[in-house]
Each structure stands twice: as structure tokens, then as C-alpha cells.
């Protein structure tokens, strides 16, 4: 197939993110930089200060005292449905009567400037009758059986029986913290009303179609009248998959009521208080295994904090459950996932989408088993890896084909020099111990398998629209959004490759639901897989028409026409791409086409929790070296080596950027990023002064990234590439395991198994001192 084309003009080469130059000169425009329409109003939100209660009234006395006018809009002003839930219908954009978390939007305030809108919003006094005993954490929710949906059960074989009949058993529990996305650009939407009830909505979103649906539902206006657009996001990471719809719909409501354009830009505080985050989890397990480390049975309970509404929590839990196996074959396996309903902000999609929680769970469990047996974790893993001997069937029924573990592991061991460094570290620790010094090091490997495709089959589709103009320039549009991950340049490379013209000929355009409709979110690492393929199909349709025309011009058969380096050739005849495009127009041949792609070979039964949800798996491995100070609990990462399977990479520099960035984001999740809620359920870490994401010094000083060589995807993905957005984040778990190793070297009494995520200095210290941290 043409996708395996070897003489590449664009694909497989390192082109930079499409806007790189505009980024470094400050000339790339984000939503907040768009010049505003005349009389545009600015919005600010009134947020609930109560975790659970009933709104009795809005006191506007103080607003009326202000020396400027403002408009207050509440749920009562909504002409359509007050619901933008992506799956179920339980998610109001503005609280109507009940408030269900601190930070929930209650009202929109409009004024002529943002400062005035925010000032007026502060003057609105929402009177809320507080309910007793709100549910503020997972343990309380579990105790009080506060759940969304029924628990999701994943069961294969006879786990309990196998555990009980094993030589050894181990039980344990630990918690995994949430994470704020901390995209640098906060949520923002600009709603512009037009004639005949049309709306243009600019918003920073990963899912323009859901914005369109949300606005359509809230305003009761047909989707066809709503154009949802976004040129670029200042970061998304999942935080703008479903969450941006809330703010876009509120902005649209504001412009519906005021008949003016409305911009709603959240400040960091309101963004962090009101929008969803990564699910925090509690993990409980019992395991049965042999003395040599072969796991016979596992029973795992996952509690995931859904927050106040269900949002995407069910698919997040599904992905957590389907990644509990990571790279290991468990024949007798039981896992149950409870999506807990609490009075805290709704948790949502975040890079990895439950996968990281599931994989951290199993890695910590295996690490604890290895520690219990005093075995090397890597030796224990080897006994349990998917293989023809151990089995290749996942607990949910999909067969793990094309396993790349051997190749990845031998590569990572080579790149990281793992054996020698283990020895060195052992000596270092002995030396520190014998000299009474406070430093300890740890090193750990982490293999990772990650399933690619949305678990929900229907989401695995994409569209593209390609125009060729008579001057030979090409306009490309597709349903994917550019949030920094380099999707636009990758898809443009595909189109450039198809026509065999330089990348600069392909003009990249704003994502717009009026150009390509009914799109899926740019999520699940699927962006280039599905949009690239849709664009390839659109371009190929046009190319086939151009080929037929060229064949006529040259009077040869279609099979003799070749597109190469901007020319269309046949024997010694040739014509430039521009000339052919013009000639096609002259001869009344269409130079525009849509393209549509749906991922093949996937199926899923959510009820039975069985099927083949993933088109393929990506593989990766990392080795991290950590150092801790046993007196203070401070830690650092000293080195990270990564080998990642990107298939035949579409663009190595972009993929490398995803690997580095994802890994560091994972480090933040597991070390310094700590969400702290007070006793009233109010999030206290509402900005970067208290919520700490990694800084430049927190990156491994030695950071070696390698894309797995000669590893084309066995499945027919676009140019045999593989998805890369989320998988590298999981590899940061290697650092968490390295920290546990370092802790266990602190003293005789240190208890590495006490460590929960994030491994802050106080938790590391508690673990060293064998105390439970608060």
C-alpha cells in the first residue's frame, strides 16, 4: 500500500511544530489575543463557596451600588437544557438550586471590561443553605456507598481461589493523588452572535464538536447554526476535552441574553477551583504468588474520585481497569472499579486517562511483592510478562499481539547500563550508610504497554477536508486540534507526502466544525492516527483525479503517472503540480475532497467488559535514578533513560518532545504536585504559588530518549506510525519505584511500602520513619 512509501518527502522527517517561529516571537494568537468585536462584553463567574447546599437567593445589593452597569445571568435564563454532560445528563453549566462542590459556577456576570465583571462578581452574595456531612473524600464516599453507576467488574478465571491456594499472600493499600492540568492558558471562550441566530464560538478546546453540541443544547439552537473554532490551545492535556464546554456554553448564554459578543476568560484561581482534574484513586489489593515471584491470583479494588458529576469518569475507570495488567499475563484476575461521587470538583480526562493510575497500581503491587520476597523486581517481572509461554490474553479478552518487550527491554538495559548502575548504587548506599551520611539512591526500570483507541468504539472516527487551488497551494482542515503536540504539522506532512509537494505548500488552518463536522475529541493519543488517515484519504481522492487527468494529458495509462518532488512525471514528460492543478480546473475537475476514517478491527462490550478495545498497543520502557536525603525527605531525579515505540515515527523531533514533556508531567504527578482540600472541601492550592508543577531544574540532568528502531506498526496506521501523546507519561512511574528503592535503603526500619503518590518530602520522610503521613 502507498502508506509504506519509502521515498519520503516529508513523512518521517523532523519538522517543527507549525507555529514554532510565531511562538518564539510572540506573534501566535490565542483566543485572548483575538481582536474583539465592537461592544464585546466580558464575563466573570460567581462560584459556590459551599461543597453541598441549596441556593436560597442571590443578594445583588452590593452590585447595584457599583458605579457601572453589569448584568447577572443565572440558570434561570437558560432557554434550552441546563446540561452539557458528555455521556450522561447530570452536568449543569450553572448551578440551579443545588450546589455540589466548592468552586461550582452559580452565575455569570457581564460588564464592559474584565476587571469590572470580576469586581461585580465578587459583590454578588450567593446565599446557600449548607447541607450536613458533604462527602469530601474517597474513603467517606466508599463507606457511604456514594457511587456513579454500578461498580465495573473485570474478572477472569478464579482469582480468589488462586490467591488462597498460593504459597504466599500479600495484602495492601495505597493512595494515588490527583493532578491539575495546569495548562498555561486558562479556560477561555469568545462567543459572537451573528444574524439569524448563528453563533461563532472561539474556545480553547480539544473538542470543538462538543462545544457545538453544548451550546446547541443550552441555547436550543440547531447545531448547523453554530460554528465552533479553535486555531491553537495554550495546552490541553485532557483538561479541555469536556471541561471547556462548560465555559463556552456559559459565554454563549451570555451573548444570547445580551445580544453581544461575550468573552469569558477564567483567571487561574477560578480555573483551578471550578474545572476538573486527574482522578485521585485508592487502591486495595490481595495477591497470591509463588516463592519465586510468579503471580497466581490478583484481586484489586480501585476507587476513583469522580467528583460531583460523572463526566468522563466511567471511561477513565475502564481504562484504569484495562491497564492494570500492564505488560503482565494474569490468568486469574479480579478487579473492581468504583466511581465515587463526592462533593469535590468533577474529575475528568487527563493525559493517560486512568491508564497511569491502573499502571501505577500494578507496578506498586509487584514492587511490594518483590520486596516481600526479597527478590529483584525485574526478575519477578520476567516471570510474569506476556509471552507465548505465559499467555497473551488480557483479562478483558484482547490478545496482546506483536509484543515488543524483548526488544524494548534489551534496548533499555543497553542504553541505561542498568546492571552496572545497580551495582554502583548499591556501593553508594553502603558507603553513605557506613559513613552516617544522609543520601540514598535508588534505580528502577518500568516497562509499559498502552492501548491505543478510544474505549468507546464510536469515537474512533475522523474527517478531513482538503482543497487544492489553481496555483498549486493546498489548504488542509481536519477535526483534530493543535494544543502543542504537533498534530497539525504531522497531518500536513501526510498531505505533503501524498501529493509529493514540499510541506510549505500545505496551508494549515483553524479547526472549525463548519468545515469538518461531527469530530471526536483530540484525545486518547489518537490525533495523528485518525486525522492523519482522514487527511490521507481526502488528499488521495484528489490525487487520483489529478492522476487521471495527467494520464490524459500525457496520453499514457494511469499506472504510468508518478508524483515526485513537486512534479508529475511519466517517462520523460513532466508537468509541475501547479500546472496540473490549473489544468484540472480548466478541464472542470474537482480539486476538493473530504476524507473519512474509522479505526478498524475494534469492538467493545462495556456490560461484559470484554472485547478488543484497542487497535494496537504501544510499548515503552524507562529507567530512572533517584536520590533522597533521608534527613529532610527531599528528592531529585538524577537520570532517566527512555526507549519508546513510536512505530515508524511520522516526525521524530515532535515525538521526542512528547516523550520528554509527558515524562516530566508524570514526574510532577508523582512528586511535587499536591492538591490540598481543606476540611470544608475547598481546594487551597489554587495557583502556581501553592501548586507546584516541575520547573526546569526538576528535569533529569541526564535525559536520554530513544525511539525504538525499525519498528513499523504491524497494523496499517498512517505510514505505520504509532501514537505517542500519553504513553510516555506512564514511564515516570519508574521514578516512583526508584524513590521506593532509595527509601528502603535508608535504614532497617524504613518502610518503602508506605509511600503514596505524590512522593513529597513529607511523605518520603514518613515512609523512612515508618509513620503514616497525613
Amino acid at each position, binding site marked *: 500500500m502507498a502508506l509504506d512509501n519509502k521515498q519520503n518527502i516529508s513523512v518521517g522527517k523532523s519538522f517543527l511544530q507549525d507555529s514554532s517561529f510565531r511562538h*518564539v*516571537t510572540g506573534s501566535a494568537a490565542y483566543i485572548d489575543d483575538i481582536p474583539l468585536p465592537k461592544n464585546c462584553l466580558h464575563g466573570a463567574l460567581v462560584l459556590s463557596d459551599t461543597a453541598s447546599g441549596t441556593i436560597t437567593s442571590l443578594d445583588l445589593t452590593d452590585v447595584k451600588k457599583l458605579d457601572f452597569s453589569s448584568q447577572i445571568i443565572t440558570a434561570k435564563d437558560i432557554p434550552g437544557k441546563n446540561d452539557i454532560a458528555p455521556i450522561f445528563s447530570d452536568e449543569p453549566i450553572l448551578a440551579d438550586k443545588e450546589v455540589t462542590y466548592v468552586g461550582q459556577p452559580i452565575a455569570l456576570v457581564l460588564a464592559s471590561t474584565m476587571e469590572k465583571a470580576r469586581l461585580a462578581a465578587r459583590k454578588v452574595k450567593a446565599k446557600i443553605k449548607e447541607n450536613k456531612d458533604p462527602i469530601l473524600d474517597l474513603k467517606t464516599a466508599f463507606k457511604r456507598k456514594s457511587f456513579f453507576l454500578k461498580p465495573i467488574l473485570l474478572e477472569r478465571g478464579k482469582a480468589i481461589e488462586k490467591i488462597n491456594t498460593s504459597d504466599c499472600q500479600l495484602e495492601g493499600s495505597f493512595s494515588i493523588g490527583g493532578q491539575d492540568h495546569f495548562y498555561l492558558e486558562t479556560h477561555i471562550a469568545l462567543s459572537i452572535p451573528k444574524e439569524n441566530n448563528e453563533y461563532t464560538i472561539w474556545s480553547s478546546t480539544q473538542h470543538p464538536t462538543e462545544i457545538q453540541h453544548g451550546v446547541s443544547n443550552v441555547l436550543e439552537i440547531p447545531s448547523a447554526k453554530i460554528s465552533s473554532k479553535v486555531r491553537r490551545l495554550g495546552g490541553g492535556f485532557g483538561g479541555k476535552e469536556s471541561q471547556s464546554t462548560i465555559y463556552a456554553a456559559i459565554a454563549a448564554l451570555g451573548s444570547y441574553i445580551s445580544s453581544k459578543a461575550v468573552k469569558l476568560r477564567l483567571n487561574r484561581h477560578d480555573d483551578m477551583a471550578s474545572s476538573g482534574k486527574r482522578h485521585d484513586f485508592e487502591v486495595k489489593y490481595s495477591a497470591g504468588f509463588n516463592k519465586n515471584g510468579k503471580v497466581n491470583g490478583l484481586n484489586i479494588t480501585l476507587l476513583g474520585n469522580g467528583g460531583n458529576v460523572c463526566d468522563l469518569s466511567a471511561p477513565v475507570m475502564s481504562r484504569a481497569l484495562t491497564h492494570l495488567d500492564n505488560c503482565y499475563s494474569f490468568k486469574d484476575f479480579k478487579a473492581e472499579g468504583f466511581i465515587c461521587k463526592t462533593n469535590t470538583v468533577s474529575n475528568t480526562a487527563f493525559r493517560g486517562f486512568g491508564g497511569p493510575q491502573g499502571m501505577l497500581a500494578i507496578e506498586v503491587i509487584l514492587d511490594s511483592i518483590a520486596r516481600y520476597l526479597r527478590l529483584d523486581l525485574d526478575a519477578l517481572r520476567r516471570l510474569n510478562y506476556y509471552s507465548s509461554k505465559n499467555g497473551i490474553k488480557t483479562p478483558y479478552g484482547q490478545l496482546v499481539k506483536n509484543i515488543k518487550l524483548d526488544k524494548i527491554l534489551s534496548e533499555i538495559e543497553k542504553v541505561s547500563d542498568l546492571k552496572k548502575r545497580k551495582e554502583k548504587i548499591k556501593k553508594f548506599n553502603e558507603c553513605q550508610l557506613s559513613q552516617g551520611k544522609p543520601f540514598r539512591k535508588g534505580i528502577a526500570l518500568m516497562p509499559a504497554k498502552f492501548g491505543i483507541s478510544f474505549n468507546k468504539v464510536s469515537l474512533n472516527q475522523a474527517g478531513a477536508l482538503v482543497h487544492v487551488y489553481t496555483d498549486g497551494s493546498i489548504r488542509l482542515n481536519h477535526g483534530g486540534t493543535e494544543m502543542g503536540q504537533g498534530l497539525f504539522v504531522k497531518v500536513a506532512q501526510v498531505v505533503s507526502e501524498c501529493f509529493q509537494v514540499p510541506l510549505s505548500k500545505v496551508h494549515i488552518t483553524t479547526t472549525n466544525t463548519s468545515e469538518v463536522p461531527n469530530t471526536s475529541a483530540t484525545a486518547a493519543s489518537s490525533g495523528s492516527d485518525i486525522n492523519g488517515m482522514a487527511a490521507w484519504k481526502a488528499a488521495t481522492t484528489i490525487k487520483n483525479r489529478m492522476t487521471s487527468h495527467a494520464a490524459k494529458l500525457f496520453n499514457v495509462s494511469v499506472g504510468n503517472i508518478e508524483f515526485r518532488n513537486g512534479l508529475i512525471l511519466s517517462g520523460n514528460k513532466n508537468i509541475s503540480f501547479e500546472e496540473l492543478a490549473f489544468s484540472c480546473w480548466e478541464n472542470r475537475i474537482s480539486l476538493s475532497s473530504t476524507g473519512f476514517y474509522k479505526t478498524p478491527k475494534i469492538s467493545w462490550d462495556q456490560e461484559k467488559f470484554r472485547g478488543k478495545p484497542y487497535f494496537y498497543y504501544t510499548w515503552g520502557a524507562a529507567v530512572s535514578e533517584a536520590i533522597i536525603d533521608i534527613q529532610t525527605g527531599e528528592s531529585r531525579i538524577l537520570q532517566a533513560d527512555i526507549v519508546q515505540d513510536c512505530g515508524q515515527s511520522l516526525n521524530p523531533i515532535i515525538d521526542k518532545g512528547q516523550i520528554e514533556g509527558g515524562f516530566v508531567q508524570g514526574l510532577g504527578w508523582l512528586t511535587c504536585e499536591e492538591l490540598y482540600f481543606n476540611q470544608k472541601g475547598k481546594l487551597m492550592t489554587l495557583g502556581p504559588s501553592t501548586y507546584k508543577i516541575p520547573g526546569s531544574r526538576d528535569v533529569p540532568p541526564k535525559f536520554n530518549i530513544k525511539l525504538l528502531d525499525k519498528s513499523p506498526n504491524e497494523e496499517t496506521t498512517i505510514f505505520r506510525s504509532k501514537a505517542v501523546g500519553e504513553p510516555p507519561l506512564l514511564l515516570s512511574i519508574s521514578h516512583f519505584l526508584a524513590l521506593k528503592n532509595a527509601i528502603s535503603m535508608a535504614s532497617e526500619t524504613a518502610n518503602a511500602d508506605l509511600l503514596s503518590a505524590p512522593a513529597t518530602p513529607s511523605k518520603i520522610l514518613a515512609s523512612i520513619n515508618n509513620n503514616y503521613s497525613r
Partner: protein
Amino acid sequence: MGKKIKRKLEEPHVLVNFEKILINKFDSNISVLNFLRNHRDLVGTKEGCSEGDCGACSILIYDKELKYSPINSCILKLGQIIGKNIITIEGVSQLKNSESLLSSLYDQGASQCGFCTPGFVIAATALKIDQPKVNEKQVHDGLSGNLCRCTGYRPIIDAILETKEKIIIPNPKKKQNVFGSKLSFGKTTFFYPRSANDLRKLLGSGKDFTPLAGGTDWNLESADQDFDKHDILFLNEIDEMKDIKIKKNSIEFGASVTLKRFENFCLKYLPTVTETINRFGSPQIRSAATIGGNIATSSPIGDLAPIFLVMGAKLHILGKKGLRKILLKDFYIGYRKNKLKSKEIIFKIELPKLGKKQKVFSWKLSKRYDQDISTISLAAKIEVEKGEKINDVILAAGGVAATPTIMKKNLFSN
């Protein structure tokens, strides 16, 4: 007034990328960020957090002591930069010799979503001013006020390391702007005393002033407060308050000496505490924040306090009647409370010189190494006899009580 020199009264203005912009008729106390984005259409400078922690809003500001240094425009008020030259990302990208830095950043793939990038370019430019080569530690120090959520920083770090060309930004023309003694931004009025005398008069004028210098705390804290009328006493135009005087037995710092200048001082005279000062906020914060402000804000953690406490710092406090002096250890009286009376400001901070046998050390523990609030900060003054016997130790800590505290011996014995 004795001498009568008529100086030309210039209209209040700021220089933005060397272009003179007159400042009048603003109906609120706007930030420099707001001014740039909404009044000058210079939208390359971004708002990421509005609390001076993410660096997306970074610009360069010229000041005669530090030349160009990076600063957060989100927590900087327009009233604080009258007469100054600021350089924005638009200005940097026009500089001839910034090209090599910009193209390294470009070539390395140092941007993904790009939202933080202008701020990083500013921070990197600050590092490269007159510096053909910087090392890795300098890069981390220089970037400690900038957050990136996409790249994992590695390409940014590499791009700066590989840039061999230094950046030169010309100094603005000599300041001649004496633009009057006050300026209003809506209900907020900035008063600009230019001498201790001016200051004393204003303190005695009966007005209820908010003293302001760097504003890294107050501009953040006041963002959500509503004022009917608000008078700001701006302390950065008084030369005496920006002096560092080395006397026979002590060093006197004007209270408006910035942390950056204090850091430079420490590098030379107190190298053992430089690491702590270097971890104080970020370069952007240290260009603005003042030592007087850090003491007056009386945070229980304030990173300077433990060092000043063990050194026996003395505060010179100015009121309408003149100066009074008080030891820092007697200054703090409770959580964010101190002995400043209303209409008093910290004018100078006097640090006794260390004896030959004395050394001062400091430590900071935080969740993240850079730009984080201390969990605990600690300072020690140690007197060593002949390099082996410790004669005396004074310890002070932040983050352990309602105020920074000198630790008494019985803290250990109990």
C-alpha cells in the same frame, strides 16, 4: 527650599520598547500586563497565573542599578514604572542580536503549545544580556521563574546553552523625568516622594497610605480587594532607600534595595547564604521584591528573616517625627503582625558586620527546589575558635511558629 534649580517637568510616560507612551487617564490601577495587552495591543506577553509565579507575563525593565532585568508584568502596576523603559517580547524579537537565541529555541523545538514561550524568551534574553556563554546552573537559576507544561524544558535549556551570541540592549536615554509628585489611576493615587524629607511630610499629611515598593506581595493581595479611594506611597524613587552603605561596624541597606541587589551583595560578602537568596522567588520576583518589603510583610516564613535574625539586624523606622530603631528580634509580634505603627515605614535595615570568627549559614526546605514557599527555613550564626571549637551558635527558623523565630536553647533540651 534652598537651591532653586528649575527642572523641566516632563509629562508622565513610560517607554515601551523605547517608544515614549504618555500615561494619563486610566480609570483604574491597572497592571503593566493589562496596559500592554489591552491598551497597547502588545499581546505577545501572556497572562498565565496573575500571581507572579508562572512567568508567562515576563518583560524586561531597565533600572540604573541592575540595567535590564526580567520582571512579572502581572503583579506590577503601571504606576510603578513611570519613566522606565520596558522591553516586551515584541521588542526582543526586533533586536538584531536576539536572532541567534530565537533561532536556537526554534531549532531545538523549544515550544509546543507556545503559551509560555514569550516569557521564556524574555528570561533567556535576560540571561544572555552581555553573556556570550552561560552554564547549566545559570540557565536553571535564570528560568526558575518560568513554568512550561509541555516540553519538559530540555529543549529550552539546550537552546540557551548552545546560543553563543550575547544580547545587547541599549540603555534608554538618561532619565530626566521629574513628572510631579502624584499620579491618579482611577480611585488609586500614587504619591512619589523623592527624598526622606518628602516621605516624612507625606507620612505626616494625615493620609492613609499603602506603602509600595516592588509590590510582589501587595499587588497580589490587593487584586481582589475593593477600594473606594486608595493612596499609594511609592518608595522606589527615594535614592536613600536604595543605597547600600558599608560602614565601619555595620552595613546599611535601604529598605527598597531589591532582593536581586541583595543577592549580588551576598555573592560578594555573604557567600554562605547566597543559595537561599538565590532560591527566593525567581529572577522576576527578585528584580521587584525589596528587603524592606519582605521584613514588613511579616510572613512567618519570610526567607530573609532567619538570616537577619541571627545576624542581629536592626530596623530604622521612619515616621512623621523622624527615625526610630528597633531590633528585628523585637519587631515581630504575631502572625503577620509587627511593631510598625500606622504612618511608619521601614527605612533602612542595618546588619552588624560579622566578626572574623563568625559565619552565617542558611537552609531552605520546600516541596520544589525553585520558587517555592519554604516548609522550613533555617539560619545559623556560628562562632568558631581556631577553626575547630564552636564557641556559640544562634539559630533562627521560619515556618515553625507564627513569626520567624530565634530558637532558644530550651527548644532542644525539652
